[in-house]
């Protein structure tokens, strides 16, 4: 345990003793001054725990480590402060556990009795002051700039204001060093913040700018705004983690906070390795350098899983306050909800649905509400977009976590088992997903020079729905029984699915798609579909149209680079020429 995790005892906080241990639930004798959510150091190993209930002279503590061997009579020390994390520039590129302790400092195995090996790296950062001595500053205002790969700013901490008494000169400073003095108080680059308290902002602003995820199914049909919320429900094997990892890699946010919450260890290892190897197309650096990874795999202590989503939200808000756009990805919120259930059960709380505590819905809502597009205290624009995976047991969408989450989010990307099993990535169902951000984003696209965005989206959605409806009919009567126009509609559905909506996550050209390429692909397919319709209406047989080789169009998404449109246009023209021959 490093010194930052369990701070020195606050004056007046007395020592106490453990009364009961039942897994992560620990009861301690409670001195009168212990407050809810205070940290408690448990046993001689000083395992961190948090007070979750106080009853008379007994406090209930949820422990964040394995409590094997902990016994009644062992010491416990209330620390007088809530669970806090250290927010600093070196979060970028790091991998942390649920309490934001760097995993690089631990050994091969995470044993609770094996203390962290050595102090965490505390590198120096180039600092450039932006205020001078004697300037009056308020909370959230910029004191200076920190030269990391992502442009960071040192802000006046919330709750502090006054005159700048001293500011460090330009140069390299370690993150623990004092770099300014405001209103008589020292300001360091690294600042603590309690994880359960949202960081203050000047005000929320409407979320009306698109977050380009690079995934066409999403950007085209179910777009999300910066500062909005998304839930991604899907049974096992539907590609939740794949989709979220692709968004972590390719979306156009400034900072990604990736919380692996109760998921697979090998998958975390994979994402950590890939982020370290891939180049960020916008900065030229490594993708890892804009990413904070919080890894709490399914076999790591369960209660740290509960804390990890709040830790992730706090880190996201820290970067947001610097005027950055942050995406917080939580995979999976169902495992977090299970940690809540596990602890509620041990506390003997009255269960609501399927054993979950009655507060599940409000806790989910509170977590998603930490997403926002904001005007920061310092007057900058920033946002936190929350994307949470949901893992419904048995694929049952009526189970409590899925059912409640659907009510609180702005966008739902439902993953479809049939699409996933047909190896259609991303398996976002067009019939069971929604985006409440779409109208606002249509206006944003129109302002941004793409006035046809809403029209294109509507046309694609209609065509896909029509093709689905006809597909049911085809299964009964066969394709040849349909009138020519409907046969072209079936063909249109296939072309849209395979040439535009589907993506190859493993292909460097197709792993992500810029808005321009997405628009070009969709326009190309729609143009070809229109020509097919004209042909059958002019008397060409549906057989002849179906027999045309559409391969260039289907391959265009992989022949054009992520930001290219010319190969798409060329493929369209080639197919149009072939269609002309059938007329």
């Amino acid at each position: 345990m490093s010194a930052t995790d369990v701070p020195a005892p606050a004056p007046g906080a007395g020592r106490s003793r453990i009364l009961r241990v039942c897994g992560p639930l620990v009861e301690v004798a409670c001195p009168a001054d212990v407050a809810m959510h205070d940290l408690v150091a448990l046993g001689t190993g000083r395992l961190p725990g948090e007070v979750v209930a106080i009853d008379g002279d007994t406090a209930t503590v949820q422990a964040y480590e394995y409590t094997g061997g902990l016994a009644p009579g062992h010491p416990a020390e209330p620390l007088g402060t809530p669970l806090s994390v250290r927010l600093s520039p070196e979060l970028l590129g790091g991998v942390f556990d649920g309490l934001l302790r760097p995993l690089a400092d631990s050994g091969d195995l995470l044993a609770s009795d094996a203390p962290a090996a050595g102090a965490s790296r505390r590198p120096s950062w180039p600092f450039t002051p932006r205020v001078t001595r004697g300037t009056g500053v308020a909370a959230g205002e910029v004191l200076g700039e920190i030269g990391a790969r992502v442009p960071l700013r040192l802000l006046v901490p919330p709750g502090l204001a006054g005159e700048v008494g001293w500011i460090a000169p330009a140069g390299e400073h370690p993150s623990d060093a004092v770099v300014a003095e405001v209103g008589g108080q020292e300001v360091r680059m690294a600042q603590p913040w309690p994880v359960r308290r949202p960081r203050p902002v000047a005000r929320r602003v409407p979320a009306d700018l698109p977050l380009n995820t690079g995934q066409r199914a999403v950007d085209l049909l179910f777009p999300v705004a910066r500062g909005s919320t998304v839930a991604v429900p899907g049974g096992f094997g539907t590609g939740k983690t794949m989709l979220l990892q692709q968004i972590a890699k390719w979306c156009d946010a400034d900072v990604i906070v990736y919380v692996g919450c109760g998921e697979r260890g090998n998958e975390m290892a994979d994402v950590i390795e890939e982020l370290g190897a891939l180049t960020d197309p916008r900065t030229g650096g490594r993708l890892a350098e804009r990413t904070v990874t919080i890894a709490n795999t399914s076999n790591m202590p369960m209660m740290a899983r509960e804390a990890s989503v709040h830790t992730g939200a706090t880190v996201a808000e820290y970067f947001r306050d610097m005027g950055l756009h942050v995406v917080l990805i939580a995979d999976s919120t169902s495992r977090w909800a299970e940690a809540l259930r596990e602890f509620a059960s041990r506390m003997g709380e009255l269960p609501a649905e399927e054993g979950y505590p009655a507060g599940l819905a409000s806790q989910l809502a509170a977590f998603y509400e930490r997403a926002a597009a904001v005007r920061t205290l310092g007057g900058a624009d920033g946002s936190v977009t929350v994307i949470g995976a949901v893992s419904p047991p048995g694929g049952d969408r009526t189970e409590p976590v899925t059912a409640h989450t659907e009510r609180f989010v702005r966008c739902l990307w439902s993953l479809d088992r049939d699409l996933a099993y047909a190896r259609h990535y991303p398996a976002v169902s067009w019939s069971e997903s929604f985006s409440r951000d779409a109208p606002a984003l249509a206006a944003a696209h129109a302002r941004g020079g793409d006035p046809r965005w809403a029209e294109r989206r509507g046309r694609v959605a209609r065509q896909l729905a029509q093709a689905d409806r006809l597909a049911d009919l085809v299964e009964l009567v066969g394709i040849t029984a349909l009138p020519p126009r409907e046969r072209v509609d079936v063909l249109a559905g296939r072309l849209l699915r395979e040439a535009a909506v589907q993506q190859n996550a493993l292909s460097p050209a197709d792993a992500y798609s810029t808005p321009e390429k997405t628009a070009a692909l969709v326009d190309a397919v729609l143009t070809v579909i229109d020509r097919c319709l004209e042909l059958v209406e002019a008397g060409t047989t549906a057989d002849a149209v179906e027999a045309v080789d559409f391969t260039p169009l289907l391959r265009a998404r992989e022949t054009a680079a992520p930001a290219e449109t010319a190969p798409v246009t060329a493929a369209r023209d080639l197919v149009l020429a072939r269609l002309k021959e059938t007329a």
Partner: protein
Amino acid sequence: MTGPAPIEYTGVRELRGPLVVVEGVSGVGWDEFATIVLDSGERRHGLVLDVDRDLAVVQVLEDTAGMNRTGTRVAFSGSPLRIPVGTGWLGRVCNGRGEAADGGPPVLGVSSAAVGGAPINPVRREPPNEPVLTGVGAVDVLTTLVRGQKLPVFSAAGLPHLELAVQIADQATCGGEPFAVVFAGMGLTHADTAFVRDALAARSAARELVLFVNTADDPVIERMLTPRLALTVAEHLAFAEGRHVLVVMTDMTAYAEALREVSAARGEIPARRAYPGYLYSDLASLYERCGRIRGRPGSVTVLPVLTMPGGDITHPVPDLTGYITEGQIVLSADVQAAGAYPPVDPLASLSRLMRKGTGPGLTRGDHPALAAQLIAALARSRQVAELADLVGRSALSPADLRHLELEDAFRSRFLTQGRDENRSLDDSLDRAWEVLLTLPRGQLGMLPAELLDAHAPPADEEPR
């Protein structure tokens, strides 16, 4: 297995199901290992589930039958359960508590390890990328097992999952590198146990196998310990001794039932189908012990076998297992009815790590494309079969008719193999080619032209 027990407590207050509540204890820690001595002198073992002031709730591994309030003495070991680890386990047959069942002496080791294990640090994990070959064609070609992976077998009552698990345990290798198998049987019948011991005798004699068996009439609660012993022994063989270790755990449904029984006895709030809410985390604490560690030579690969009650894949045990594991091998009653062994359903089965563990230098250059094409063709074959049922064979196009015959060719020429047949990867891949080449070249669009040229006469071109 325990050290000297300093204090014996006699204050048994309550006995319920597998639980005994002891009063008047002091200094007893949570998850400590306990030894219980009965009136008759019989020794039993337990784990502390809850310790509240001077009360300790102990879960008895051998059940509480015959225990009474006055004659039962409980001693606590002072630490969570540890077992000796080392190569001394190789070649041994033990019961579900790790006691020798082969007439030999108790297993000793130079060091000991806690059976709960410790999570592997995610940043120290090496992503799995090399295959384990099982000699079973359907597994090696279509759902390749990768070193450090967890890949379950989903089965149903009446299917030969135990035969398949034993065949894999008997035949699996890692390309000549040091290898071992740890086999944990839970709730096996005596006939099954005898079958497992016989079939694996050769591997056991070669000191490449550790066998733990909890039989169906052994204490149910003991099953909570069996997989943890197996994994603890495996982790040491892998990460300290540098072996690639395959851990076969069967039947995980029997394990989950033991977990449910303890949960019910404790009066915990039940979740789905009365399984405890922590079933996911508990299963993860077993399955997640697989993996590789950077800078260490060995690996732990986990192959859990579970029977889906009523064949229901949405039952909590297969469902939660599927959320944790990296794919699944699904056995199907339909394939079994068609007379094929192993009855693997190729379309429902998947190995998520296969992409990284196959290909040139790992298996064979043509393997990934070949497997993808075979799956795609089988998917088309199944669609065509459904269509043929609805509209009749006469309405099918010639290409569709060729696909109709593909599934039969797949079953007879590729899938079916002997229960003791160790099929080489080359043989399996060549059979996959043989099956695919019953289709015209034009239907094999996922295979690169140069691969097709090497295996198929280019003249066999037909219009679509």
